[in-house]
């Protein structure tokens, strides 16, 4: 079964807030995420993972009356947290997906202690059952 793990991060000054971290904290965080992805790949569980560009670049688009794009800065300036990136994993059980999410959530933060970032876990819909 496939799950999407969505990591949310504080918006900072349009830049995830990581710009205020020390060099050591940044290096530790980057190394942690890289190792996590390597482990998921080696376990055959990684379907995909992407990091998103900074929230300062986010735009919200909807169709205008004539179908042309209506583009506004966004999303929702009042929100404190933004989607920072996601993983899609293919695992045996929901519990395994939760375990991976907890690992990702324990990535070291500015002080070196686990960041404990919230991660939303959603099952990805698949094909209909074969004998339907």
């Amino acid at each position, binding site marked *: 079964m496939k799950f999407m793990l969505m990591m949310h991060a504080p918006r900072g000054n349009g*830049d995830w807030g990581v710009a205020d971290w020390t060099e050591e904290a940044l290096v530790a965080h980057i190394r942690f995420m890289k190792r996590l992805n390597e482990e998921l790949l080696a376990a055959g569980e990684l379907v995909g993972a992407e990091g998103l560009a900074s929230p300062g*670049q986010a735009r919200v688009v909807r169709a205008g009356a004539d179908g042309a794009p209506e583009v506004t800065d966004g999303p929702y300036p009042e929100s404190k947290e933004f989607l920072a990136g996601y993983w899609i994993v293919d695992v045996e059980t929901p519990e395994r997906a939760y375990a991976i999410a907890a690992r990702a959530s324990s990535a070291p933060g500015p002080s070196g202690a686990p960041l404990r970032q919230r991660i939303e876990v959603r099952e990805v819909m698949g094909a209909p059952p074969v004998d339907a």
Partner: protein
Amino acid sequence: MTDEALLRTLAPQVLGAVVRRYGDFPAAEEAVQEALLAAALQWPAQGRPDQPRAWLVRVAGRRMTDQIRADVARRRREADALPEPVVPAPDVAPPEGDDTLLLLFMCCHPALTRPSAIALTLRAVGGLTTAEIARAFLVPEATMAQRISRAKQKIRESGVAFALPSPAEHAARLGAVLQVLYLVFSEGYASSGPSLQRADLAREALRLARMLHAQLPDVPEATGLLALMLLTDARREARTGPDGQLVPLDAQDRGRWDRAAIAEGVALVHDALPRGAVGPYQLQAAIAALHDEAPSTEETDWPQILALYTVLLRLTQSPVVALNHAVAVAMVHGPRAGLARLAALRGEPRLLHRVAAVRAHLLERDGDVAGAVAAYREAAAGTTSAPERDYLLLRAARLR
């Protein structure tokens, strides 16, 4: 040569021969893919035929004939009473020639979008499978199959002849070919390191550029493109650190640069430049050669690099070149002179973060720590490359 390497070399020649004979590019491309697959399955067990190229042309030709017969039979069932079709005999040896070159010109046709031309070139000329191309560009195989199929359709509709473009069109079409090959190379080079299949993309671009140079030894820009790829690729090993982080030119361990590639690239630059008709690829190759031959950033011939960027800027008017020109100005005349150049640059939105990154480096060199930190942060917030963002944030963190 292994079977696989031989098949890759023969793929465009066989496709050229089949297109020449039957005309229908999309159908010919399918038929050649099937012939290549048959070879990959049969040769290891039954041994390689004496004339592998003729074998492939024959098998692909048979597919074409079957396809044409089937189409005609279907149409006959629909329309009844059509005359017996004339189907070309599949086993006539095709003429040797510059089919590979014709294919390149066809696949890089300006009617195609760049991504389509790139995908089609890799498949038809490079002999890569759709799955391999999809992996290299990190898109699902079905998406890539569709992209290739639409590209072939577009070629059929636009009625591009399987022939060299007219003299009037030649320069523009050659320019498109060079650009497609360079884009393939950049795609592979820029993201090499973490994933190996992308490094393969740079290798494939190099192979095709080599082939193009062999076909057009007297075209200086084709020579320049090959030289530029060699001189850039020579630094590949040194440009990423153990954690996949970006290592800028001035911090790279030059002992890890590929000396053989540099020697070959430099020789090509020296061969191309005196021929006149100096173009952007030769100039960029000449600049890369000056970097590659320098023992360190300080001992680099910056006045010569500045002179080359000045010519290149006049030639291309490209904002990216203007940015590199400003860096060279700073290296020769000091960071303040470079900053003055930057201020004069009208920023394209997609270039803003790169301007900020250069400004940050120059401010740092000028001793303006607060200004540099702010510019690094601005650049980090604007980039869409994760390794580049990490690099810029680390630079800023180090200064604070």
